[in-house]
């Protein structure tokens, strides 16, 4: 009786964690809130893992970790794609449309109401979740080995522990049944990389001057003073004796903390690794787990250009568009243009105008998506809600509809101008002078206006207005579609100003098929700015600086 009541309560209160992130769902035109799910920002507070679109392998591993951190009862809702193989399979699948999502949520609610308390829930386990055992000296925490042995400093026998744990512990069982959740996950041997995503286990690592970010496991013991063991008291001076000094002259423990690839304040798929000293960032770097790779890899002939494999021109266009979920229209146009130029077709005025209309419409939607993201980062709920709502409307609006939305879009700027605290929050954050190399798009254009997050906000708002003007004067937006090119061969190059900056594509055609291509995007360059932007900043400011670049991890070409 009580169980039934609780199950029903659960079903009415489904919160979901969106993977890769809410911005991806919005870019696909999905309104998750309208479908009846509450958007949660942490795996701890989510009952449903909502996966939007296909995930890369790295992302799949990260999501597996997230899933393991969700309290049961939990479910997986897969929208538009296959669930990663490491997960137990989707409970409910749906296509990429609002109707299907709504229906899927109803089915989910029913599933929760009926069987939230299955008699014997199966344990979930995956390779990704297994901890690595390492060996550490009880006296010298900085001595960490992969094999048992003795300490080179004092000769004591090393003690086994799980990577990331703070005290030697001989019990490595995971008692899922006893609610002992897996928190810390290490790969076995091969891939030396933490696959934490949004992991709440902190990685204290003692640094002995030689900062090695070469991808080795930095494992050390936990931050000073956290002593669950039975060792005696050590003074702070002793504890911090050999540690590097911070900017304020204090010797403190530094933590290397992962942010992402599924983190509420950052675009999904972007992983930021920050070394924190208190809440200041001493250094950081960003990587994309979902970016395109252009080198040929064996066994994967989908996203790489391979000499041996030729891709049908039409397929290539679809491919490029779906690989960039945050700016599909721009990349579709880019691929069309490059192929048409390779085939020697001339641009025709009317088509170009309609295509550019669609490009500008995407720019408006994309900038609104960025505003929503900034709102999420700043806890500015009104902005997130307003911008998301407008983004969903703009996404496939025709010219008249856009004219209708114009006043709402314009008042957004006025409203932000009047918002107290906003300027003081953004001014001076993420400063990039105009002479910085590799700036493109809104980030480059804002560099002349002050070059900080505040300038980038106004640059994007100005671009929304300019795009509206363009569409009003040029006619109905229309998606690019490939004109008939026949069996031609040749080489062509095209450049499109995507919402995030210029993207350049050059390709070779052979008998109407794409033989090889080379893609250069703004985000590939912008992601390299991250280390400099975050260094020495307070954590909140550092994240905001990264956010203001509007990185799309998909558009990072490695």
């Amino acid at each position: 009786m009580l169980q039934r009541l609780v199950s029903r309560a659960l079903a009415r209160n489904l919160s979901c964690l969106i993977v890769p992130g809410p911005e991806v769902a919005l870019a696909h035109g999905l309104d998750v809130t309208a479908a009846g799910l509450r958007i949660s920002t942490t795996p701890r507070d989510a009952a449903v893992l909502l996966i939007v679109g296909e995930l890369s392998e790295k992302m799949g591993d990260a999501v597996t970790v997230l899933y393991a951190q969700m309290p049961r009862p939990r479910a997986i809702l897969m929208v538009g794609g296959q669930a990663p193989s490491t997960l137990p399979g989707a409970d409910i699948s749906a296509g990429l449309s609002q109707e299907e999502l709504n229906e899927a949520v109803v089915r989910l609610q029913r599933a929760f109401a009926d069987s939230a308390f299955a008699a014997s829930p199966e344990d979930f386990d995956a390779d990704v979740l297994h901890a690595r055992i390492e060996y550490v000296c009880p006296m010298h925490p900085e001595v960490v080995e992969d094999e048992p042995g003795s300490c080179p400093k004092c000769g004591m026998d090393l003690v086994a522990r799980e990577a990331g744990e703070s005290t030697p512990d001989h019990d490595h069982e995971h008692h899922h049944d006893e609610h002992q959740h897996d928190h810390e996950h290490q790969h076995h041997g091969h891939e030396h990389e933490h696959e934490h995503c949004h992991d709440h286990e902190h990685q204290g690592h003692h640094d002995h001057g030689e900062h090695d970010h070469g991808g080795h496991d930095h494992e050390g013991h936990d931050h000073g003073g956290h002593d669950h063991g039975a060792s005696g008291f050590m003074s702070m001076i002793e504890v911090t004796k050999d540690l590097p000094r911070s900017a304020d002259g204090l010797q403190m423990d530094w933590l290397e903390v992962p942010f992402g690839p599924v983190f509420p304040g950052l675009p999904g798929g972007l992983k930021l690794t920050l070394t924190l000293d208190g809440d200041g960032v001493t250094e950081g770097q960003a990587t994309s787990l979902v970016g395109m790779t252009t080198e040929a890899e064996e066994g994967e002939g989908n996203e790489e250009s391979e000499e041996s494999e030729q891709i049908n021109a039409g397929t290539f266009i679809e491919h490029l568009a779906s690989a960039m979920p945050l700016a599909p229209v721009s990349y579709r146009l880019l691929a069309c243009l490059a192929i048409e130029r390779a085939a020697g077709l001339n641009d025709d005025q009317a088509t170009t105008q309609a295509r550019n209309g669609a490009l500008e419409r995407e720019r408006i939607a994309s900038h609104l998506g960025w505003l929503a993201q900034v709102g999420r980062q700043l806890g500015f709920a009104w902005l997130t809600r307003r911008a998301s709502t407008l983004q969903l409307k703009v996404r496939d609006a025709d010219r008249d509809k856009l004219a209708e939305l114009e006043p709402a879009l314009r008042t957004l700027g006025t409203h932000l101008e009047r918002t107290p605290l906003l300027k003081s929050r953004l001014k001076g954050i993420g400063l990039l002078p105009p002479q910085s190399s590799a700036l493109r798009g809104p980030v480059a254009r804002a560099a002349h206006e002050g070059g900080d997050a505040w300038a980038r906000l106004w640059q994007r708002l100005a671009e929304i207005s300019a795009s509206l003007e363009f569409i009003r004067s040029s006619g109905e937006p229309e998606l690019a579609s490939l004109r008939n090119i026949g069996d031609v061969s040749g080489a062509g190059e095209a450049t499109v100003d995507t919402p995030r900056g210029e993207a350049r594509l050059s390709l070779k055609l052979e008998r109407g098929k794409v033989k090889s291509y080379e893609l250069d995007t703004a985000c590939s360059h912008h992601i390299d700015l991250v280390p400099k932007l975050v260094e020495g900043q307070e954590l909140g400011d550092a994240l905001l600086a990264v956010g203001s670049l509007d990185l799309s991890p998909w558009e990072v070409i490695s």
Partner: protein
Amino acid sequence: MTVAIVLLALFGSAWLLAVIEGWITTGRLSPAAPLYSGLAHLGRESIVPRSPDRVFFEAAPVLLMVVAVLGMAVLPLAPDLVIADLGTGGLFINAALAYVLVAVIMAGWGPDGAYAMIGGWRFLGQLIAYSMLIVMPITAVAMRAESLVNTAIVGSQESLWNIVYQPLGFVLFFIAAMALSFRAPFDLPTAEGELGGGVDAEYTGVRLAVLRLARLTLVVTLASTTTVFYLGGWYGPLLPPWVWSLVKTLAVAVSMMLAGRYLPRIREADLMRWCWVLGIPLALVNIIIVGLLILVVP
């Protein structure tokens, strides 16, 4: 009996507040929603992180709850509706609220996770910013009442509420109270976009239910404090005194919850600077003005 009534008022207000909050965020007015979400928390796994400081981890949500209830114990809903009308009521609230810091730091330290820990220490910085702005406005309120007894403080506002008598003090106190309840835009310890939930991040199931209820209750307690100190407590025409107390308390609580939706989160450095460089001198000015008024106006 009084204890039961006051507690009922406290949790009833928290429930109403949750309903209103749900209405604003989802657009649906559903009186049962908070009950359902509470039940849903009970139905979920309550996870303990792998190497927690178990005492801190378990104690933090409970302590936060106790603080909110303790504060409420000295606040009068009506002349005779107060659990303990202490001679030092005004200061007792301040003392009880000091434990919010302890609870938040426990919640930060307990789970042994970086996000939570940073959140906990951030709140320590926040306390250094807001704490003077809690005490100094209370000083001016007590000066006017010539007493620290909360019923006397309300009594002193019979002819003119303190919000009119000392508006500066009210503004400062209101801001400090919002910072103390760490609701947006002062949600530095729990910032979702910066710390993925911070001190809340590791709590699930029953513990999360307690923590959320405690945070709501804390807002109600602070709103009630604001009512007693600045909005003339139970005074008002027509309706019975306790109704006025509750209406005012809810109004203040809702405005505390809502302000954050329309504002970006404040930077920690800015909060510190503004509170110390601007807030404290203003609080002193407020004390001086009130002192002069007491001398000049009989």
